[in-house]
């Protein structure tokens, strides 16, 4: 089991979710975060374009069984990217190991609880 963490643009959330659902990855947790990376231009403030130090982003956390890692990652990459070639600020995906998953409702554990 892996925990896939993706940090994407706020404005891409709908698109990514639609794409994931199409690929039958429906269970997901979403968190508002702010990030700082290479991205630089964003908002307008009284006639001036400003670069927020921390830019609002959305973080997805998806626990998946090992054989779902690739499809999940690819789906996110494809749907979270701006245009064909991507743009600075499109985000990152981190994959971390996960030892156990438990469904609170039933107490089920492991792969089937995901």
């Amino acid at each position, binding site marked *: 089991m892996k925990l896939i963490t993706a940090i994407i643009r*706020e*404005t*891409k959330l*709908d*698109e990514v979710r*639609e794409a994931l659902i199409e690929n039958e990855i429906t269970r997901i947790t979403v968190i*508002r*975060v*702010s990030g700082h990376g290479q991205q630089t231009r*964003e*908002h*307008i*403030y009284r006639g001036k374009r400003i670069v*927020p*130090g*921390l830019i*609002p982003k959305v973080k997805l956390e998806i626990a998946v069984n090992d054989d779902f890692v690739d499809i999940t990652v690819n789906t996110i990459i494809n749907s979270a990217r701006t245009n064909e070639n991507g743009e600075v600020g499109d985000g990152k995906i981190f994959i971390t190991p996960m030892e156990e998953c438990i469904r609170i409702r039933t107490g089920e554990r492991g792969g089937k609880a995901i």
Partner: protein
Amino acid sequence: MEVFKRRTFLITVLLLLIFAGNTLASDGNGVDTGITAWMLTSTALVLLMIPGLAMFYGGLVRTKNVLGTMMHSFAAMGIMTVLWVIFGYGMCFGPNTLGGWFGWSNDLLFLRGIDTEVNNGVPDYVFSMFQGKFAIITPALIAGAFAERVSFKGYAIFIALWGILVYNPLCHWVWAEDGFLFNMGANGAIDFAGGTVVHISAGISGLVAAIYLGARRGYPKTSMPPSNLVLTMIGAGLLWVGWFGFNAGSSVNSGLDTAQALTATQAAAAAGAITWMIIESFHQGKATALGFASGILAGLVAVTPAAGVVQPSGALALGVIAASLCYIAILIKNKLGYDDSLDAFGVHGVGGITGAIMLSFFIRKSWMIEAASLTESGTWTIMQQLGVQVAAVLISIVYAAVLTLIIMIVVDKTIGFRSPAKNEMQGLDASYHGEHGYGMLNAS
């Protein structure tokens, strides 16, 4: 604004007294400082409704659209005011032009002709500014129907055209002394503060626009929960307060009829709110805050045309009926599947129609007697007035629907109205305003 005709006699008497010149309340220009004070206040109160509406609507949309939605109200404050000052007031209250389609008078361009005019004790400027607020709020109400999916530029052009082609003519017909609806039947179609002009026209136009533009992406599958019901509740509170100016101000007086309108307004709003609360408790097991607020609005909308002619018991009844019908209308909408995002039609259209028609059954006796005295036969029945009301409602509906459709098509085909999918997904705030509403949500 019903009041004009009824007070004609009285006013004549008073004017005589004024020009007798022996009163303080006149400041020498024939101004009644008391009435003027209340009309100035009413103007401020109706203006307060615009931020109130911005909050009401802004809280109901998703986080990414809050500023865009509020800007629909605010932009109307800017655009409609400027048009109103330049020629809108003239189109509404100038003498009949083009066979009474609207009014016009070059003298009223830039309000030049009324710089020192006073009528019925109130400076024309005050009346003009009070009326101008109605021209702001009406298109802003429509915006609820197509919230979360239109381009800002398209919206700005749309409301300008809509104001000129729909609002101004309707306003002229109903409230100008030579408007044809003002003179229908024995004593005119009753539209005290804007049931037809404001709510029905906004509601119907919203319905047409919502259907023409199509639903928001994902509707109705994806749910789109309100981002800030606290904001919505505050907005509802401000709307209620502002509505005192809207309705009681429409008496253009500070007297008995003003008091009657205020009382009816308060009673109907409360009755609407409680009705919705009770229905929802039984239907869903819980009384939502949004339901309470919707009931307030339903009551207020329904009493708007009626505030001058119904007594408190009638106002309570109107509130109950309107809230029930609006509740049902929204349930039906959910079945039909068109996407009136914030129920502009469900509340303002349905509530307005309910009020304009049902008021016939609660008219104060004295009004009916006066109406009868104005007919040749000396009689005038509730059914006759009902006919007048229905006619006025239908005319408003048809006119608003047809013109709105034409304007929609023109705007959409030329500069574009509906948001492209990408912008809709990004949200109005980022796409059209380069901002986002709640920076505090993100640590920084």
